[in-house]
Every structure is written in C-alpha cells, then in structure tokens.
C-alpha cells in the first residue's frame, strides 16, 4: 500500500496503570512456599513483575494477569482467587462501558487492531449499531484482500459538493471551476469532547494528531489560541454567531462550523463575505425535525451538514432512538429528494468503536466525528470527576502534546485498519462507495423476525426447555 495511505503507529506507553477487569487475591498466610510454586510457573510471569502503584493503589499484577486461572487452580492451599475489580465496573456508563474503554486504551497504546482468540464472547445483538452486521463476499462476488496490503482499498473521502457531472471543453480540459472539495484520507474527523481535563497542551496534541492523520479537529472557536493559529489548516472551528468575531477565524482555516439557527443564511453570508473560499458546515442536533432542517440547508446551498448526536450515540431529544436510525432517516430523506449528492453528511455522537465508522457510513454518513475516544485515548476513565471540579485521576491536562498526538494517531490508525478489514470483507474498495450501501448490511430486527417469528406455538401443558 502506498505509504501515503498508511497510518504509521508505534507503541506509546501508558502514563498510569490501567484499570483491569479482574484482579488477583493471593493470600500469603498459609502459603507453603512450594518449590514449584504456581506463581513461578505463571506462563506470563506476572508474579515476577508485580508492584504497587502507590498513587492509585493499583497492583500491577491485576493488569498483567491474562486470566488463565492456572495459579488459581493449582495452588495447593487454594490461596489464590480471581476477583472482579470494583474500579473496573465503576468506570464509564452503559454506553462507554468498561470493555469499550479498555479496548480504546489498548489501541491507543499499541496502535494495533484488537485481536484475540476464541469466538465472540458478547451479547447476540444490542442497541444501535450493535443491531446490525456488515456483510461479506463469498464465492459468488469479488472480494478484496485489503488488510495485508495485497489490494489497495481507499478510505479517502471528500467534504463539500461534488458536481453531478463534469463538462469538458473541446480540448479535453475541464470547463468552469473545478469541484471545490476538501479531501481527507479517511472518513474520520476528530471532535473535541464536551468535557475532560483538557488543557491547551491536550488541544495542541489533538491538533498535531489531526495533522499527522491528514484530517481535521472540530473544536469551539474560543479554544483556539495563538499556538493553534498556525495549525488552522487542520482545525474545524465552531463559530458561534454571537460573541465570536469572524475575524478571529484562523487565516489558513479551510472549514468552519456554525450551529443551526433559524437565520443561518445571514450567518453564512457574513462569513462568506470575509472568507469566500471557506467551507461552512452546519450542525444540526440529532433530534426531531432534523430531516427538514437538513433538507433546507441542502437546498440552501450548504454543502456540509453535521448531524450531532448525543455522547451516548443516541438522539439528543429522545434517548430511545439511535444515531444509526437518525443518520439513515436523514440520508433517505435527502436521497428521496434527489439532493443527496449535493451535500456531505457528517455524523457525530458517541462513536465508540471502529465498526461504528463503517456502520455509520453504511447508514448514510459520508464521514464521522470521533469525540470521546480521543479523550479515552489519553487514559480517560469516563469518571466525569472533571465535570465536578475534582482532580483527574490520570492527569490528562499534564500530558505532553506529543504524547497526546501519538496516542490519538495510534487509536485512529487502529480504527483505520479495522475499517479496511470490514471493507475488504464486504468487497468494497472505496469508502465513498460504502455510503448508504445498506445492501451490505444486515439488520437484526429484520433478520430476527424473519427467522423466528413463525415457529412453534405454546399450548396448554407444553413444556419448554
């Protein structure tokens, strides 16, 4: 694969001991000090490498343990037990669940895609993106062998408006203005999370990461200081119509965002007045009525629309509805109105795993935003202490920009490879062609009903087993 399209990752150590799912309780009292001790025989040598992190009072052994249970099962005095770690269960919430957080930490540390042995250990299906499967190609359809670089799979996407067709003049050159688009190598834009122990160094690091990835970072205008000024080309500032002077927009910025307001036309005109070449994306909250708003923006010439979900991957006004359905709904609306190719649809809100990128695109997004994962990449535990003014247990604000950037590059690098994996399996060579390809997905609701709705009948006296 051309190196240009590869994201170079290299392991970046953690700054703190991570929290792990289960721990080891190994009592010494009564220990026989066997000559052939189960601790010495540990395949992973975890007992030789143990130590206490006196800051968090975490035993390193908990993180090193690979859960083989050999010591638990072989200690002659049964002095070793596995336990669930209460700190682990306390992390995050139902969406940012502890396993997701840990997985994000690992990817940010190693830059590698998560690989494991044994089959999938999780639930059959779940809400939102968990209720759909992507497809694969087999025998009767061409497939792609992307991940090992045997075939080139493009993840590049365009932001902006692509013309319906090109007009060439007689000498085979393009007539008129060339299409005005921003080309990014992967369908992911970083987005500054709405909370976190974020310092200027953190933001600087994220911006560095965005630049290394060739993508952008969306952040509020007021977070942009002089240091970030020269990174304008990778910033995507959110300009609030009131209180922010348009003049503060970094000179080399290519794109800005504005929030949805009824009078968005005037705001856009103002901005275009100062920066005629600037792309403007309009954020629509993922909420009732967004289809109409999107339609009006598209019709009004806005080429980039950002659907902003909640940080739980849900609608902002209706917790029962998922991002997946919101994206599909807007996408279908625009398709029905024959205006879909006139806009780029960006989606944000609680994307937590690599597969969400592919699934959001299948549902109709062109590109997605990644928000909290770039905070979790910095060892955030989603404890939200920072929102109460309590200290950050992993002192994110003290991390150096370079460390921040490398962690984010690792994470997105790993996601990028996973995107290539699923695209390869689907036989899709171009991320642009994945958008809205619901034919390459399977939805739980449909399949479950088809398979199981009409089977046996429960009758009186029957027995279930």
């Amino acid at each position, binding site marked *: 694969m051309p190196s240009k399209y590869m994201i170079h990752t290299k392991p970046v150590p953690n700054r703190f001991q991570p929290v792990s799912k289960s721990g080891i309780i190994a009592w*010494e*009292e*009564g220990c*026989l*000090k066997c000559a052939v001790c189960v601790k010495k025989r540990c395949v992973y040598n975890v007992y030789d490498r143990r130590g206490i992190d006196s800051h968090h009072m975490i035993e390193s052994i908990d993180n090193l343990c690979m859960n083989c249970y050999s010591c638990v099962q072989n200690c002659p005095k049964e002095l070793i037990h596995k336990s669930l770690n209460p700190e682990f269960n306390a992390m995050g919430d139902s969406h940012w669940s502890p396993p997701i957080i840990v997985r994000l930490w690992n990817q940010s540390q190693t830059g590698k895609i998560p690989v494991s042995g044994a089959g999938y250990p999780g639930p059959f299906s779940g809400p939102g993106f968990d209720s759909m499967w992507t497809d694969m190609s087999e025998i009767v359809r061409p497939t792609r062998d992307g991940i090992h670089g045997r075939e080139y799979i493009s993840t590049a996407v365009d932001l902006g408006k692509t013309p319906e067709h090109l007009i060439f003049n007689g000498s085979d050159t393009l007539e008129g203005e060339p299409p005005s688009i921003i080309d990014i190598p992967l369908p992911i834009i970083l987005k500054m999370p709405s909370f976190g122990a974020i310092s200027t160094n953190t933001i600087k690091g994220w911006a560095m990461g965005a630049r290394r990835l060739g993508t952008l970072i969306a952040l509020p205008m007021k977070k942009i200081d002089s240091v970030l000024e020269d990174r304008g080309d990778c910033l995507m500032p959110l300009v609030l119509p009131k209180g922010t002077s348009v003049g503060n927009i970094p000179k080399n910025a290519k794109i800005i965002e504005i929030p949805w307001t009824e009078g968005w036309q005037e705001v856009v005109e103002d901005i275009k007045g100062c920066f005629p070449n600037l792309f403007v994306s309009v954020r629509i909250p993922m909420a009732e009525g967004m289809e109409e708003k999107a339609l009006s923006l598209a019709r009004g010439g806005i080429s980039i629309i950002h659907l902003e979900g909640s940080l739980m991957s849900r609608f902002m006004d209706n917790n029962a509805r998922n991002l997946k359905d919101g994206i599909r709904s807007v996408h279908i609306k625009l398709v029905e109105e024959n205006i879909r190719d006139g806009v780029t649809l960006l989606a944000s809100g609680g994307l937590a795993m690599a597969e969400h990128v592919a699934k959001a695109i299948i549902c109709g997004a062109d590109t997605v935003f990644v928000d909290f994962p770039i905070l979790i990449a910095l060892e955030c535990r989603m404890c939200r202490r920072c929102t109460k003014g309590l200290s950050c247990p992993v002192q994110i604000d003290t991390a150096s920009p370079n460390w921040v950037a490398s962690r984010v590059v690792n994470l997105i690098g790993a996601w990028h490879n996973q995107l290539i994996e699923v695209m390869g399996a689907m036989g899709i060579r171009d991320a642009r062609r994945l958008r809205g390809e619901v034919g390459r997905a399977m939805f739980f609701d449909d399949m479950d009903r088809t398979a199981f709705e009409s089977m046996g009948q429960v009758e009186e006296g029957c027995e279930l087993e």
Partner: protein
Amino acid sequence: MITGEQKPIDEIREMIAPYKRILVLGCASCVAECAAGGEKETAMLASTLRIAAKMKGEDVLIEEKTLDRQCVRDFVILLDDIIEKYDAVLSLGCGAGVQAVAEMFTEVPIIPAINTEFLGETRDQGYWLESCLGCGDCMLHHFGGICPVARCSKQLFNGPCGGAMDGRCEINPDVECAWHLIVDRLTKFGALDRLENIYPPKDWSKKQGGGPRKIVREDQQK
C-alpha cells in the same frame, strides 16, 4: 528450613542510624517461608523505615530488593550493579545470608535485620517449631522419629528426666516432653524395649568439629 524473626524496629533503626543510603535486602528462601524476610516483609520493613525517617525529617534513601537466595553467591553477585548506590545493606537473610553478602561486598556494612533462630518445621499456619539442631549425626531412628537433641530441654538420651509431668516439660507446661512423645511413639509400634539399652554418649564432633562445618562433594564440584 531456617527460621528467623525480625529484630525490634528500634534496634534496626539504631544499627542503620549512621547511614544515608540503605538497601533493604530480602531473601526469598527460608526466611520468606517463615514470613520474616521475604519480598513482602522486605517491602514492609523498607516502608516502615522510610516512614520513620520522614517522621524524623531525616534525609535518607531506603530502597528494597529481594534475592532468590542470599546464601548462594550466584544470587548475591546480582547486587554488583547496584551496590555502589548504597552505603549500607540491611539484610533480612538468615545469618548465612548476611555473611554471604558481607563476604562478597566488603566495602559496605551488611546489617542483620532478623534474628536467625532454628531449623524447624511449619507445624501449622503461622507456627514454626524447632525440630533439628543439625548435629550432623542423625539418630532419629532410635527415638521413634522424635529428636531428643532438639526437643528435649536437657538433650537427654536415655529417657525423660524426673521433671516430666503429664507429657509436659518441667521448664514450661507449653513444651511437650520430647521423651514422653518418644515413649508414646515407640509403644505404638511395640519397640519400647529399645529404650532399655543405655544410649552411649553422643559424638558431638559432627556438630562442633571446631570452626564451621563443611560439606564438600566432589561429584558436585566443577
């Protein structure tokens, strides 16, 4: 195994008082087995000493390390890379361990942090009992597997003294009379008549041949 117990902290503090950079050195063998000088106890002692030093506002460096065995030179040599960081070593090894470290590292004082006690068995969780004096001439077969040398307060060889009462030793009712046990055992397998012979004076030269005893095994040597 060899047993030991940690010295009182005051005594340890006094011994290390002249030094500023101290390595607290554990031993993962016998003294770990009797919970006196293993990795865990070493960490606890080091932490305790650091706390004490902080309380007194003393500026000292106290670090810990535990060797697999302090009484084997191949393990002791592992200190070679770090020893120069310290001006004293506080060893939780048994007497043999302390001496092995001291012999190799002549430039720093090696201070014992535990009192080495005896050769014993682990009777129960947290209970160690002296059962062997290392006399070099085992005669347990005569005594039903119970050693009068280690376990009789008077080291008698020809039966219990007049002080034995109810199977207890005259020195302390907590102490079992070894001879009572011996008699019981031999009675059980019908060999009590063995004790009718006068057991001759013991050859103590195997224990105290003069100077340290040695075992040299040519088949084991290089």
